């Protein structure tokens, strides 16, 4: 990947009076979350988190409620001050900024979308979307033009003068996304944006969001408690548990090589068809064997299991996997079926 747009290194967040003592104990003795609450009366929100988000990447943070994912993402725009660690946004240390610089960064470079929309109920849709510009003192004419453009990006033309409460939940969240896009920031922070929506709308918005981010080349930190959503949207996924990042990897890595039992339990119910690539499950084959199968069907190693099944239906022979035009391995029916099951 290219340059890191957001970079967190060794970030800790401890809530409570005895921050320093708790961190000391947690670093030296591996104090657990429950023990910290018991001994120091503190809550460990984030524990030694490090990751970076590359330009144009969608980085998902997945975890159950209380795992610290929302806390973690609020460090990026310093809505929450870290107890320790450094956060760099576009190469600048967020912790070292003064109040004016921080406001400037929030208004210009970071857009945020919230789980419960958090629209201002007394302002029209247009004025809601224009708020990040209004804060910076952009004149009204310019503000309105930009706001209308942003609403166009999320297909909400014609709703500019409505109040948020007149819109459905899905539309309100699109207003939220438009607001985040209004000042054309490099970075989007999405805090469980689609969790409160019903499943059909959620799927729609996920697709819409994905293509929008690709077209606009935004870097995104996407929080979710839904692994399906993380896999659908994310280029990379970080799985959090009790404030710790347990594993970071591509969706395929997470599903095929879960780091521990916790992650394994999560990925159990995930459909592998669209995730697992042919080269992950293929068997190595000697050149002689490949020679013998000369007439067999070929498919690229980057194809997923779904495509393999389509191909496998038409032939009794093993399928030859190619990479950059060269034959590298084979997949028999048995391998394919086992691969779908999860390599058992």
């Amino acid at each position: 990947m290219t340059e890191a747009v957001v970079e967190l290194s060794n970030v800790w967040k401890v809530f409570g009076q005895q921050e320093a003592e708790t961190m000391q104990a947690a670093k030296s003795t591996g104090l657990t979350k429950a023990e910290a609450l018991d001994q120091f009366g503190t809550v460990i929100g984030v524990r030694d988190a490090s990751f970076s988000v590359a330009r144009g990447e969608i980085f998902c943070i997945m975890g159950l409620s209380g795992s610290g994912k929302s806390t973690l993402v609020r460090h990026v725009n310093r809505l929450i001050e870290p107890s320790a660690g450094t956060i760099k946004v576009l190469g600048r240390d967020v912790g070292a900024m003064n109040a004016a610089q921080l406001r400037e960064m929030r208004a210009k470079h970071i857009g945020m979308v919230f789980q419960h929309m958090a629209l201002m109920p007394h302002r029209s849709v247009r004025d809601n979307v224009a708020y990040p510009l209004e804060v910076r003192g952009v004149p009204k004419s310019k503000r309105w033009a930009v706001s209308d453009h942003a609403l166009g990006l999320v297909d909400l033309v014609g709703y500019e003068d409505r109040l948020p409460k007149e819109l459905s939940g899905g539309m309100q969240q699109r207003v939220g996304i438009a607001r985040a896009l209004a000042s054309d920031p490099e970075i989007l922070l999405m805090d469980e944006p689609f969790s409160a929506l019903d499943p059909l709308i959620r799927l729609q918005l996920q697709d819409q969001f994905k293509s929008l981010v690709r077209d606009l080349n935004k870097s995104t930190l996407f929080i979710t408690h839904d692994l399906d959503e993380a896999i659908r949207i994310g280029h990379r996924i970080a799985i959090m548990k009790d404030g710790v990042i347990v594993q970071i990897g591509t969706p395929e890595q997470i599903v095929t090589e879960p780091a521990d039992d916790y992650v394994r339990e999560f990925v159990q119910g995930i459909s592998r068809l669209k995730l697992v690539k042919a080269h992950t499950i293929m068997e190595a084959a000697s050149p002689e064997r490949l020679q013998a199968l000369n007439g067999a069907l070929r498919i690229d190693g980057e194809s997923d299991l779904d495509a393999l099944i389509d191909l496998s239906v038409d032939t009794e022979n093993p399928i030859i996997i190619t990479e950059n035009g060269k034959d590298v391995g084979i997949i028999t029916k048995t391998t394919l079926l086992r691969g779908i099951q999860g390599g058992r």
Partner: protein
Amino acid sequence: MDQQADMAEGRPGSVKDIEVDRAALDQSIAEFVVQNPDYYSRSFHKIHDTTSGIPLTFNWTAALLGPLWAGARGIWGFFWGFLILEIIAWVQIGRGTWGELGADSLAQAERQAARAQEFLQRAAEATAAGEDPSRFETLAGNLTRAAERSRDAAEAAAADATFILMTGLGLLLVLKLVQGIWGNIAYEKQYSRWRVTPDQEVSGIQTKNIVLAVVLMLIVAPLTIYRFTIENIPDFLTAFPADPDHYSTTARWLEGQIDAAALAGSGAFDGVVLVVRQVLDAISLALIGTPWPVVMMVIFVVAWRSAGPRVAIFTAAALAYIAFLGYWEIAMETVALVGAAVVLCVVIGIPLGIWFGKSERAYRFAEPVLDLMQTLPAFVYLIPIIAFFGTGNPPGILATIIFGMPPVIRLTALGMRGVPDSIKEAALAFGASRRQVLKDVELPLALPSIMTGVNQTILMCLSMVVIISLIGGGGLGKVILEALQFAAKGPGLLGGFAILFVAMVIDRIVQGAFRRADQK
């Protein structure tokens, strides 16, 4: 498999088949009652098994010892209720037994008989002196008959004594019976509570409780029975032996302190009065200085615009009443007083409310003060206000502010707190400063609550504006006060209606305006 077997075994066929587990219950009851567990287990079971009406168990200890039993077991409601009822019964018994009922009638009869005797003697002397004795004889005869009647009354009272005694005994018997039956029921209720909060409920007999019950009974019962039974009792039992000097010294000292404080801070107090007077004068000038047709027209149009044609017609009628009875200027003075008080309340109250809404600590400190401002009867703080600020309209407005400001502060704070954190956070996330968050998010979202507060403040100020006439405030309150002093029914009623109309017009207009703002 195990689970399935458990399910099959444990699944009840119907509610009838469920067995009551007495053993576990007994253990818990024993733990609660400590002393005499067997008896209470049986009684409680009987209560638990009752299907209708009052469970019939009889607790002899509760019946005989009454409140003492209840106190020892920590059933204090039972203790106080039956202590008072038993005292009533005992007072009756005491009056019947020792109370010398009819004693005063008997004494009167004796006196009257003695006087009759005296007159008879005079009559005898008169006869001996050769004068006419008939006057004395008549007097003696009258007195003898009066003495007879007194003696009859005394006898009747003495006969009443038996009746009172029987009533007392009967009442006591009934009370004992009720306590015997009710005792276990009350105790079982205490047990149910104890199961939920074992730390807060008393269990078993505790020495501490026995001592407390005995002490309470000794203080309350004998003195009360003595007081109502015996005719002549020492004075110190009916009137608290207070030394009047305590009062006068404290009052004098306080007066000195207030005078000194008023003198020391006179500059500051005068400054406050000056500010209030400025505001009042500005509003008065606008209302009274402007020709009356203009003011009336404006009020009428405002009523129409904010609350619709019906309120406008009512306003016109009210204005006509006030104008035709010659109350116009006085009524406008009242409106000016209310207006000045409300303006000051809002100007001071909303910033305070914003502060209290943001700072939990400040609100904790302010809360008792606000409570005091609202609960303190107005008459109480009128005097210090006179001491510090003198008399007249400005001090009256200050008194009105004390009474009227708490609602706007409270409801502003409430509104500020009701602003969802998520929206504030969103504004911050888009780079808003704290001032911008206040202006763009907090104040607009708290506005409905703030407006309710302002409305309440207006109504409170209106109700106060009559009272301030006591410290020299003008306006319609003064009209009422004068009418009250001379018990003048006509002027009082006319002035009263004028105030009522002013209040109703202001209330209607304000409510109409706020309702329109709400609907937006």
